[in-house]
């Protein structure tokens, strides 16, 4: 056993209102730069829908992720090492910017500078690639809330898969349709195919917290990672010529803060926590022959932090004590392993993704209430989950490689939670058979309710800091190394490097971690003097 810790995320899709706050705050934090105009580390797509970039799930075309070769061993779908090097001079499977969308801005100046005339001046859209006026025809979110679904909906690769299997059709007629929002970030996979595709070895998974990053100094712009990632969550910065990706806001996570997307989520639907896993078993689990068994296989490599054997092994592996504590209290561990309501996104890509989703019950509830039934009655709900086959099968294509079993089980638990809690709210004694019908205890259901519905900040985010052990050292190194007058324009200004402004090494100012925590304590304390 080789235990490793991973900071993982769970999103409760029932609560997502599709407001895109997460995308916007993420963009403001990370990708509001030249060359990244078209990039959304966090994007929220409406399903059914084509997603961003368009039809990224069509791996016959984009060749992302892993597949099994004839001997049953894992190999990159985009081709092995020799193929990669021989084809390094161009990458035929690389999405063009237009597969995402052509970024644009508006000619705002015209609004103030236009000469006096009879017509109102307008700000015309201008392409940020060519600098010329352009027609806006697609964006990262063009089919938001099923916009244009009767026309484009059929192009969702998952809709096409469901159709191939079920004779019935996914309907886009207004009364029969269903939809939900799917916020996506990088999955920070346990078996990342982006890392495996990088010829320069610039991409890596951090040993401490499992965050997958691109070393900007080592990236040489070969673009293989973009193809390698089946979720298309590595992006090519077309100005700097380097790959960039979601960083899981590691500078925030390291000091115990949630990621920007989590912190700002209006629906408060994101959970962050530690998951322990056995690194020795990853490859074997990812090579599970049947795609539908991959979900169970991935559950199989997670370790239980309560298990003394695991605790001992973790200690030997150098996982700090506060990380073990965090793993024990981890909401992610609870939702994924204990209650089993969260499911991975596209396990069939065999990358062992680590951002999991609680499938939405709301399409079912909505359909029930619209037909005049009680959407919180357990029998009604159970019946509806089964009769609404299409949403179920569609969800299964997304979360469990088409196996409806786990999706039904997860929705069943959510439905049971609804009925159970309604009884409590109405002051009735809850029916214990409800809990046992989904294999849970009443107490467990109530715990799950606290986590999912009350969802307190401290319960949603249990993030151990990166370097409590190093706190002292950190604190010391936070003191400026150089002259304190070396600030810009200051009397002791360090000046430029030997080859002009951008050369040489410069130190960024650093906020002391200690004072940051003190600040937070002060901000959230009841009394002033703490």
């Amino acid at each position, binding site marked *: 056993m080789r235990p490793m810790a991973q900071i993982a995320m769970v999103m409760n899709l029932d609560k997502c209102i599709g407001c895109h706050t997460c995308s916007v705050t993420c963009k403001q934090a990370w990708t509001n*730069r*030249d060359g990244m105009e078209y990039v959304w580390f966090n994007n929220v797509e409406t399903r059914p829908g084509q997603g961003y970039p368009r039809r990224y799930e069509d791996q016959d075309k984009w060749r992302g992720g892993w597949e099994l070769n004839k001997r049953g061993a894992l190999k*990159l779908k985009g081709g092995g*090492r*020799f193929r990669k*090097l021989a084809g390094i*001079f*161009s*990458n*035929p499977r*690389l*999405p*063009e*910017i237009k597969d995402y969308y052509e970024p644009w801005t508006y000619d705002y100046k015209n609004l103030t500078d236009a000469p006096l005339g009879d017509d109102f001046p307008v700000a015309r859209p201008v392409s940020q*690639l*060519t600098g*010329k006026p352009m027609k806006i025809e697609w964006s990262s979110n063009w089919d938001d809330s099923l916009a244009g679904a009767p026309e484009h909906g059929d192009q969702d690769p998952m809709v096409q898969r469901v159709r191939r299997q079920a004779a019935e059709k996914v309907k886009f007629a207004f009364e029969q349709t269903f939809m939900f929002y799917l916020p996506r970030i990088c999955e920070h996979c346990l078996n*990342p195919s982006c*890392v*495996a595709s*990088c*010829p*320069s*070895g610039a991409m*890596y*998974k*951090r*040993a*401490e917290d499992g965050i997958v990053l691109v070393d*900007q*100094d080592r*990236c*040489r*712009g*070969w*673009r293989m990672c973009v193809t390698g990632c089946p979720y298309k969550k590595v992006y*090519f*910065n*077309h100005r*700097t*010529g*380097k790959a960039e990706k979601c960083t899981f806001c590691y500078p925030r996570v390291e000091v115990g803060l949630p990621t920007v997307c989590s912190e700002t989520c209006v629906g408060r639907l994101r959970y962050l926590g530690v998951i322990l896993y056995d690194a020795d078993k990853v490859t074997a689990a990812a090579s599970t022959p049947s795609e539908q068994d991959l979900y169970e296989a991935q559950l199989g490599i997670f370790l239980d932090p309560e298990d003394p054997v695991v605790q001992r092994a973790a200690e030997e592996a150098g996982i700090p004590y506060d990380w073990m504590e965090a793993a024990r209290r981890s909401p992610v561990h609870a939702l994924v392993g204990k209650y089993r309501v969260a499911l991975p996104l596209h396990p069939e890509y065999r990358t062992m993704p680590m951002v999991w989703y609680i499938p939405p019950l709301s399409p079912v509830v909505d359909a029930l209430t619209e037909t005049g039934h009680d959407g919180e009655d357990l029998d009604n709900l159970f019946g509806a989950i089964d009769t609404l086959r299409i949403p179920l099968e569609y969800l299964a294509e997304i979360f469990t490689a088409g196996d409806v079993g786990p999706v039904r089980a997860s929705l069943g638990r959510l439905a049971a939670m609804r009925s159970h809690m309604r009884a409590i709210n109405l002051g009735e004694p809850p029916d214990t058979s409800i809990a046992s019908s989904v294999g849970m205890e009443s107490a467990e259901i109530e715990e799950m309710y606290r986590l999912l519905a009350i969802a307190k900040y401290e319960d949603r985010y249990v993030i151990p800091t*990166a*370097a409590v052990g*190093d706190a002292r*050292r*950190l604190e*010391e*190194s*936070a003191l400026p190394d150089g002259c304190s007058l070396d600030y810009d324009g200051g009397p002791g200004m360090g000046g430029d*490097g*030997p*080859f002009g402004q951008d*050369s*040489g*090494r*410069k*130190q*960024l100012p*650093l906020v002391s971690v200690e004072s940051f925590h003190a600040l937070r304590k002060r901000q959230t304390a009841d009394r002033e003097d703490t």
Partner: protein
Amino acid sequence: MTTFLWGALPYIAFALLIAGLVWRHRYDKFGWTTRSSQVYESKLLNIASPAFHYGILFVLVGHLIGLFVPESWTESLGIRERTYHLFSLYGGTAAGALTVLGILLLIYRRRTNSPVFRATTVNDKLMYVVLLGAIVLGMIAKLTHASGDGYNYRQTIAPWARSLFTLRPRTELMQGVPVLYQVHAVIGMALIALVPYTRLVHMFSAPVQYLFRPYVVYRSRDPRQLGPRPARPGWEKTDA
């Protein structure tokens, strides 16, 4: 002049190459990239880029053989000058043609595709002029001296090139060399000097280590980076 061109210039070019690489490695690892424009346009690039790159790799191998394998070696293998000449003529021309075709397509693409053209810096343009110059002049030199036994550079240019390594350049050998070859050689040296200062530097990061490393790379946080870290290029400057 002879001394400068054939005695000093090669060393200057070489020094600029090494100094440039060291500088890049120390101060501009971030700028060390292919700066691919494939995300703007893919179709043409998928044909042109492999054509050019494979072509120029063959051309490179040809140059290495021609310049650094002495005539006496091939002769002792029983390869006569005429055979060698024909081999180098056809092989070289084929590789050269592939390269020229590739680079012309690439330049056409760069000029006509407006996002690609907008992403072209002055540095790139200079690089393209020198690169195209070196390739085209090399082809011309080779083809104008192709008739009969051709020009046997292996008795003049090659020994001169090898003499550079002994630090006693035999500049007199270059005097009788046809002008076209001389021009090609000078531009070639300019190109070598330019490599580290342009995007051509990516040739030095051919990722052969990919064949040998494990697929998934793990790295620990650098303990030296727990404190203040150097400013990252690529982030636009703010006043904060």
